[in-house]
């Protein structure tokens, strides 16, 4: 198309030579440009356009072969390649001025296919021709339809907006009204909405009834100025505007396909009305409701404000963060990441309070004061709602206070089964509070649920999981999210309470459920977090697992639990060592009670003795059993039943090792593993099975090195 450019200079350039600067700008080679130029001189299209631009008013049209010929040339080019913007200006002027007659007016409009863009001046001029009022009605309609079709291709729309009033005056034309309404819909800004225009539209509405195009335009007016006009759309709205591009659609898309890289026109200009959600449910209704506030509009109608829902990207948010307008209903923002960013940033107390009021109300009405309308099918909806809340909370990394207070109420009536995953997730976002309240609001109802639940072990696991995440979540961020009313020592007390509570639940649960493997593993997972509170989360707290958890893990029949216990004990030791070191170095540090050390030592002793030394029956320890009683069981060598070879969890490995060492032996003598180099080999074999926890534990506590891992964390050891 470049060779046809700059036709604006046609009038002043009688030779008709086409300036080739544009083509050279197109990075073509000189030779090619030369060729183009030569071609251009003989270009029938250029000449035709030039001819058409000079057609004056009163030209005879009928039988004017020259006009017809030139018209045909331009038409052919237009339908195949599209027209450059200058030609569009020329042709539009020719058509609308009716210089070439009424018939040709429609004909020109029909082949007015832009190759790239449409200059807005052409449209402005066209509107002024419209104002002259000479055009027949069908030509007027055709022109407005054409404008609507190419609307996205108009290079700039500010001048068009400044003649808004002129365009608006055509709404009274009955035939033109639908198209003008559509055009106005595309052009309207807040400053265009005035009481007299609203009144005019309402008059027309009174005359024509509820026409969709009027309704759409008025709905837009209402969005901009809710203080002037009000309107409620029926729940099922017909699509607002029809497509008016039928005449040009095929040609336009063909031309566009040809000129790839040019601006793509939006083929569906019709407004897609968002389907209103069913009003039966308050929750969803609110989430979509984005009516603007009355009060705020009238206050700052002159200021350029951005509605939070209109923002699409984080970049837009950053650019407009100083004049963002909150929606009338804060509930609509829940679940929108951008809005949450904004809320997090501005820390507007009333905004978050509004959100909280709405949220608390919805939760309360939906779950606590269930309407008795028998809506039992709302589980999926409730589930979605809770998931949205969860998303928002996870995004903010903090729970809403209204969900918190809702949960306290809800826990006392919860059956432990309704929407369990969501409720448990929500629970894990609850901030720590003073231990008094924690007992009252959280532990009591949870304890009841825990012990009375029918799907017992599942709840056990999930509960533990929840506590684990609470702890993690809190501990990770504790210096900055310390609740306002809590002191540091209060906070520590609460964490301690929490861990003790889980310990209690876990040991009781293990007892009731006969040391269920899954439950045991969840418990150990919890303690994996707890044991590292000092090192990983800088919480000056070390809390040992209760005997009800420790011994089931130590004597577990699955090797994974034993290995985990090894790892936990290893981490405890590291934490305690470091804590002690710090305590010695600095006078001022935290205090870990003597009992913790004692407990640790006792557990450590029990573990090492039973697994390594085969003297597990230490007088005075937790597991002292009367010798006669044991002899009654007739177990041979009862003291070594839990050593690394005979431990029920490791027994199979010992057998396998034995088979590999002495494949020819018929009777298994596990005792022979203990002799000489076989022991070391056995250790090596065992640790190669992936028992890293045990490996670490044995390394640090017995000084036995398998040579697999680094030894820098070894401590000087001493006899008990």
């Amino acid at each position, binding site marked *: 198309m470049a060779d046809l450019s700059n036709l604006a200079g046609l009038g002043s350039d009688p030779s008709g030579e086409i300036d080739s600067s544009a083509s050279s700008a197109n990075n073509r080679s000189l030779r090619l440009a030369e060729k183009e130029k030569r071609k251009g001189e003989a270009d029938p299209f250029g000449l035709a356009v030039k001819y058409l631009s000079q057609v004056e008013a009163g030209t005879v049209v009928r039988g004017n072969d020259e006009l017809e010929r030139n018209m045909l040339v331009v038409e052919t080019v237009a339908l195949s390649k599209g027209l450059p913007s200058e030609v569009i200006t020329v042709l539009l002027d020719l058509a609308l001025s009716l210089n070439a007659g009424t018939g040709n007016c429609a004909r020109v409009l029909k082949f007015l296919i832009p190759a790239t863009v449409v200059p807005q001046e052409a449209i402005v001029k066209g509107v002024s021709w419209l104002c002259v009022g000479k055009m027949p009605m069908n030509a007027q309609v055709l022109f407005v339809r054409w404008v609507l079709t190419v609307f996205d291709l108009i290079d700039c729309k500010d001048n068009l907006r400044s003649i808004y009033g002129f365009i608006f005056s055509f709404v009274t034309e009955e035939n033109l009204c639908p198209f003008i309404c559509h055009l106005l819909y595309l052009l309207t800004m807040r400053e265009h909405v005035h009481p007299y225009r609203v009144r005019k539209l309402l008059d027309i509405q009174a005359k024509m009834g509820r026409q969709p195009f009027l309704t759409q335009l008025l709905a837009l007016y209402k969005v901009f100025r809710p203080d002037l006009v009000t309107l409620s*759309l029926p729940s099922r709205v017909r699509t607002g505007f029809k497509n008016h591009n039928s005449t040009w659609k095929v040609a336009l898309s063909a031309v566009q396909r040809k000129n790839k890289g040019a601006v793509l026109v939006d083929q569906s200009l019709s407004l897609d009305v968002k389907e209103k959600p069913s009003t039966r449910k308050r929750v969803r209704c609110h989430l979509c409701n984005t009516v603007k506030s009355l009060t705020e509009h009238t206050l700052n109608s002159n200021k350029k404000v951005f509605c939070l829902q209109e923002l699409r990207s984080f970049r837009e948010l950053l650019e407009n963060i100083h004049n963002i307008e909150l929606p009338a209903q804060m509930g609509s923002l829940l679940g929108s990441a951008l809005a949450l960013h904004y809320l997090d940033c501005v820390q507007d107390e009333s905004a978050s309070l509004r959100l909280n009021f709405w949220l*608390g109300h919805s939760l309360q009405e939906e779950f606590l004061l269930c309407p008795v309308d028998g809506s039992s099918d709302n589980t999926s909806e409730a589930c979605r709602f809770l998931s949205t809340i969860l998303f928002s909370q996870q995004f903010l990394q903090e729970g809403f206070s209204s969900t918190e*207070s809702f949960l306290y109420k809800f826990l006392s009536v919860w059956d432990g089964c309704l929407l369990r995953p969501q409720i448990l997730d929500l629970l894990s976002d609850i901030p720590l509070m003073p231990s008094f309240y924690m007992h009252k609001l959280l532990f009591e109802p949870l304890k009841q649920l825990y012990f009375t639940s029918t799907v017992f072990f599942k709840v056990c696991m999930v509960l533990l999981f929840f506590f684990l995440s609470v702890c993690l979540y809190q501990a990770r961020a504790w210096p900055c999210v310390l609740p306002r009313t809590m002191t540091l020592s209060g906070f520590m007390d609460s964490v301690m309470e929490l861990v003790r509570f889980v310990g209690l639940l876990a040991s009781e649960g293990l007892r009731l459920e006969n040391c269920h493997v899954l439950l045991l593993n969840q418990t150990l*997972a919890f303690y994996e977090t707890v044991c590292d509170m000092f090192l990983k989360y800088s919480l000056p707290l070390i809390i040992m697992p209760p005997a009800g958890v420790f011994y089931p893990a130590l004597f577990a029949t699955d090797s994974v639990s034993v290995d985990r216990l090894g790892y936990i004990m290893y981490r405890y030791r590291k934490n305690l060592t470091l804590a002690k070191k710090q305590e010695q170095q600095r006078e001022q540090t935290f205090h870990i009670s003597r009992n913790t050390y*004692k407990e640790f030592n006792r557990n450590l002793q029990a573990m090492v003795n039973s697994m390594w030394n085969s003297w597990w029956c230490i007088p005075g320890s937790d597991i002292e059993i009367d010798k006669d009683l044991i002899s009654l069981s007739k177990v041979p060598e009862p003291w070594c039943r839990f050593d690394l070879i005979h431990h029920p969890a490791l027994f199979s490995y010992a057998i396998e090792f034995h088979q590999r060492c002495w494949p020819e032996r018929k009777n298994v003598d596990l005792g022979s593993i203990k002799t000489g180099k076989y*022991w070391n080999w056995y250790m090596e074999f065992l640790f190669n099975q992936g028992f890293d926890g045990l490996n670490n534990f044995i390394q640090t506590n017995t000084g036995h090195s398998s040579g697999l891992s680094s030894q820098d964390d070894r401590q000087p050891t001493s006899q008990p």
Partner: protein
Amino acid sequence: MIHISLGSSTRLVFLPRPVARWESGMFKSSSCFIFFWLGVFLFIMEGRGSAVNTPASRPVTRRSKSYGRSCVEAPSYFWQTPGHLAVLKIPNSRGTAKSQTITNKVDPEHIALLVKNEWKLSYITPLHHFRHTRLKSYSKHLSAFIVAEKQQGVAVEVGLEAGFKVTFSAVLGLAETDEDAETVFIQIQSKPVFAAVADAPKVVWRGWLTCVNGDLEYLRSLPPDFVSLPLFCTSGPESLTTLVKSWFERVFDCNFGCLALNSTTLNWLTALWTGCHPTCNIRHLKLAWSLPTQPPLDVSYTVNPQDAWELWNSIHPEESTDDRIDIQEVQSFINGLEAHFFRHFKIFLSAGTLVKVSTALGSAHVDGKIKIGNSDYITTLLTLLTECALLKMPA
């Protein structure tokens, strides 16, 4: 009052943690097999008894922002309604009902409007950006909104008289404390389509928002751009109530919920009203119970006012020095009435629920419907109802 739908099978979403820690280098084999039997060396650590110190070096930053207010903070346990903390805030005693000539404070015309109807109660969360100075424009907007909602899809100009006329007015003087917002009365008039020009528009709907003796701590904790008028009384067709509610919800970002009166509230009213008998004849004390039998048994129990008062007086002597009534006194009064009924009919009324209380001073129904019979005791009633509404507030 709490219904939880049970028995929905929810899929358990549970993501187990990996059970073993697989670390890189785990299978690295070593060529060195020279190890020594080192025996067992236990490293036993000693806890030193030292003073309790908390690390002071750690900066403890207080978090300034919050998404709402924590429940266990200052004004907070207020709204722990069904939970345990409710006992902390629900008053166990309240002042006796005192007659005051309310018409000295409040325009008698307004009072007359409040007295004659039966009102359906709702609670509302605090109104955002509500201004008592803008009542006129609210009138215009609400009437336009109602018209627009009535004829879906037709736009309505704001401020044009069309079909419905809405009047917002402030009822000054009902507020008891400085924190109470003034009561707002809303009246909707409609002109029938085929009415003659001279016909006066008919009042089709009335409603009012009020706050009397609201909990000071709660009201003070609200930011200044909120106005708390927690009690909403309506009288008129449900469709209009819904429209008014949805208009409020859109404009002031608030939410409505039903305010049912629990039996404790009804018990309180019974006692308070009975106590008024010497000063103002209550004429009758009518109580209605509903008993969960098959079929349900409704018991209507009318007590001679003098007898009721004597029973009450034996529990709470009139000449007692303090003006306060205790919840225990209320309970024993109700127990007394129930015991009397049992003696005659061998029916335990305590097995059912008290559904309605009515005297000449007013009536209250468990569904949240009230009638005000005598304006002189309106403050006591509204104080009690405001309290109920505030207890429903979320967060």
